[in-house]
């Protein structure tokens, strides 16, 4: 990663409004962001701040209400295997086996002429995510961590230029999450993938990010972009650089604190309207 390399993804003045009945809700305002090749960018913000919305727009699944979104030199106009997606709920195809899920993208028409050695590639991915022996298993028979490993392998199969991950470990228990974070970091180093990762966990952001993009409460705007100057393998931060790591956590906490209060302030309203309906 060099500062002079041209960005893979460029967001310029991105905004998004959602129409619900006659009300228009502003989810994002004036987001300017560049994703550089090979980096792992974490989008961090309180829930409802529009960080997933931003991710889905970069993926091409939602259209921005305003602003300009580019991958390399081309405007983003829809989903593409160039931009992989990993969802919180795994989104595996339940009727397909592990192997068929991983090979799904490579079996589609666009890949037929372009991709050689399909089977070997799937084999390599199965090994990379440690799922040997489970190739013929259906997703319902797998644990949450295994499901998410299948989803990650499925996304990597088409060799996307950038991978978007929407709270991918949010549905996992704490222990599995720890393991998956390490595994993701290993895969990120191994494949040199550019990754944009959405989370609301400060610790997760501090463990994974090369840069943390802190978003404000709704409507989401970029509050600050925090560069992280720590080695990529941070698992033993307690022994090697606990001071710097805790400083980073402290800084992120400070940035988020005001935003959490703002989003908390909205809750009493919701509660009163709920009480009214009940009475």
């Amino acid at each position, binding site marked *: 990663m060099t500062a002079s390399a041209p960005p893979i993804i460029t967001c310029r003045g991105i905004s998004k409004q959602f129409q619900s009945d006659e009300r228009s809700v502003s989810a994002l305002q004036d987001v300017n962001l560049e994703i550089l090749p090979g980096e792992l960018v974490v989008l961090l913000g309180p829930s409802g701040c529009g960080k997933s919305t931003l991710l*889905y727009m970069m*993926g*091409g*699944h939602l259209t921005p209400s305003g602003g300009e979104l580019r991958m390399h030199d081309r405007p983003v106009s*829809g*989903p*593409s*295997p160039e*931009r*992989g*997606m990993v*969802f919180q*709920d795994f*989104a595996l*195809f*339940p*009727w397909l086996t592990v192997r068929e899920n991983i090979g*799904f*993208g490579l079996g*589609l*028409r*666009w*890949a037929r002429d372009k991709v050689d050695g399909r089977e070997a590639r799937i084999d390599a991915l199965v090994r990379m995510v440690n799922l040997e022996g489970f190739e013929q298993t*259906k997703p*319902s028979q797998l644990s949450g961590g295994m499901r998410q490993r299948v989803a990650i392998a*499925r*996304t990597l*199969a*088409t060799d996307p230029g950038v991978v978007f991950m929407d709270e991918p470990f949010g549905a996992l228990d704490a222990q599995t999450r720890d393991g998956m974070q390490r595994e993701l970091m290993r895969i990120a180093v191994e494949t040199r993938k550019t990754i944009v990762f959405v989370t609301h966990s400060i610790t997760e952001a501090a463990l994974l990010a090369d840069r943390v993009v802190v978003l404000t409460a709704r409507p989401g705007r970029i509050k600050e972009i925090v560069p992280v100057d720590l080695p990529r393998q941070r698992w033993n931060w307690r022994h090697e650089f606990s001071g710097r790591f805790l400083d980073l956590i402290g800084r992120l906490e400070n940035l988020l604190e005001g935003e959490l209060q703002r989003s908390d302030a909205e809750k009493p309203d919701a509660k009163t309207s709920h009480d009214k309906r009940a009475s």
Partner: protein
Amino acid sequence: MTSAQADATRHILAGMLGFIRRYYSVFLFLVAWELIARIIGNRVFLPTFTSVLAVLAEQLSSGDLLTHAAVSTYRALSGFVLSALIGIPLGIAMGWYRSWDNFWSPLVSLSYPVPKIGLIPLLILWLGIGDTAKIAMILAAAVYPVILSTYSGVKGTPTYLVWSARSLGASEAEVLRKIVFPYALPHILTGLRLAMGISWILLFAAEMVAAESGLGWLILFAERMLETPTVFAALLTIAVLGFFFDRVMLMASHRLCDWYTERTV
């Protein structure tokens, strides 16, 4: 008796026991029927189960019953297959394309409650009393559960599955074929199973109004002749046929959608 023969006998006995255990309520019902009919002792009012079986055997050996059953099966299955061929594509198109939904949904919901048996006179007027009118009537009734369950299966396809496929490079046709259709398949098969039942019910109604053959016609004809055992023989045949095809549908569902588990009767 060799040990292999003994094993085979034991196997058959175990199978029969399992069968009886599973359907013991049916056996109890048949025994009750037999007893009550014997007490009443009036063959025209209520024939005994055994006398119905005798008639059944006689009709089977003469080939009459089989001919009627074959004619009825042909009509029911034709209507059923047509309702699948029309209902599945229409349900998918309505569930996926807004414009198809807007155009067809009002038509479907308005015509759905119309009693299809009421169409019999019209269909006879338009199509005559041949097979076409009967198949058309079955189609008119059986197509609804196919359309409605296909539609709701397609509508229920989770957005994130579609998004996943799209971001792996699936075209719209591939999304429909590889995501929407397999996701909706268990629902489609549920609709087809309902359609199968409706096909038989409607068929006998149609055959009882205007026909010269078929099990429905046989029931009516036998009743006029005060041949009540034949009425029951025909009813039993219908029950067995309906049950058989329902099991076929059920097996197909389990085979095709082993990922999807649903309790079924």
